[in-house]
């Protein structure tokens, strides 16, 4: 096993230390720290443009931070990006689905690429089972969002990164997502999500990005 180092961060955590992010000429945020233990939830809040999406993309490994490090159980994720990709789900603003594929085909593809095969469970979790044979082009915005979220359940991964997952969801979809997150955390999974609407997540940490915003420059 690894020898305990002098690092004060507890083991088995997903953490970021003094992260900074630049978009174009503008420093979006700087000096941002977070620690997310197993079973934890981190809710990112802040006004538009405060860097919620940018932080989620950094956490996913899309782009690199201007400064600071992201670590999983003390190991910087940059050192083993393949292992990091294997342990995360990222659901962004775009739904990544093809109009000509059916709902079930689309989900089976994304789950299969990660070695998962719980397609039926994913469909059932977000009430998509009756739509399984529909081509994706017929889905409404809310149904597309559900299908994107169903990938979370269809191929399990310990870290969920969700960028405004509530967009377009109705009350049922909202309840399904909250339940799915609850089940995920009960099994020791972590979730980081950005939102503008309050979410009933027990014991969630809130990280307001406005506090780390850098003005000017």
């Amino acid at each position: 096993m690894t020898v305990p180092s002098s690092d004060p961060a507890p083991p088995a955590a997903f953490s970021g230390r003094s992260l900074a992010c630049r978009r174009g000429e503008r420093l979006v945020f700087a000096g941002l720290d977070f620690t997310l233990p197993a079973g934890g939830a981190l809710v990112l809040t802040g006004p538009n443009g405060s860097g919620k999406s940018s932080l989620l993309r950094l956490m996913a490994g899309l782009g690199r931070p201007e400064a600071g490090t992201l670590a999983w159980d003390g190991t910087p994720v940059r050192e083993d990006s393949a292992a990091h990709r294997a342990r995360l789900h990222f659901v962004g603003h775009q739904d990544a689905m093809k109009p000509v594929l059916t709902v079930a085909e689309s989900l089976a593809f994304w789950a299969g690429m990660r070695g998962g095969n719980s397609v039926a469970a994913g469909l059932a979790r977000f009430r998509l089972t009756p739509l399984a044979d529909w081509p994706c082009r017929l889905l409404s915005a809310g149904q597309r969002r559900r299908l994107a979220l169903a990938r979370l359940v269809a191929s399990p991964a310990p870290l969920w990164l969700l960028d405004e997952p509530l967009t377009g969801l109705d009350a049922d979809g909202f309840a399904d997502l909250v339940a799915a997150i609850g089940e995920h955390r009960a099994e020791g999974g972590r979730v980081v999500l950005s939102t503008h609407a309050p979410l009933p997540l027990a014991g969630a940490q809130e990280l307001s990005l406005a506090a780390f915003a850098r003005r000017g420059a």
Partner: protein
Amino acid sequence: MSAFRLLVARELRLALRQGGDAAMVVGFFVLTIILFPFGVGPEPELLARIAAGILWVTALLAALLSLERLFQADWEDGSLEALALMPLPLEAQVLAKCLAHWLVTGLPLTLVAPLLGLLLHLDAAGYPVLLLGLLLGTPSLSLIGAIGAALSLGARRGGVLLSLLVLPLYIPILIFGVAAVEASTGGFTARPHLLLLGAFLAGALPLAPLAAAAALRQALE
């Protein structure tokens, strides 16, 4: 390996469902070749002399036609970002996409080329070498094209930029492809030319996915 196969199967399924690409590429190839007898006149000797060149140049242009869509659709709907986060390395994914692209464009082109050779009075000795040359050359077209398609992602008028980037790199394939056919119709051995086409493919096979994947990562940051 199974994720690789899954990606190839998805690309083929999309190509079949959307129907457009393969049919368009072959249609363009056939129609353009048919224009030449009208343009330069129907004399068999003249057509036979330029047949190899026409077939290869048109094959390059036809392959180029479909390359713009190689990553563009996935880039627009967020699939590319999602793919980049899959455990399968992006390099392997590029290879899978090139394989699928070749199966729906390069392979059909290769198969119809002998028929069009007939139309152009290509010498009988040229057919086996034409087929073999296209079999070795068209995968390189897909692979090198993937670099251009990745680099021109997000650019306006990406298709034109893609042509400017990729066509110069196609020149060696064109030279050796045509030289192989002309050697065989002239009674010489086509072997060195075919070997060079093979060498080109052997180089492109590992290097093009590396370059294209690097370009894709740049586009995603």
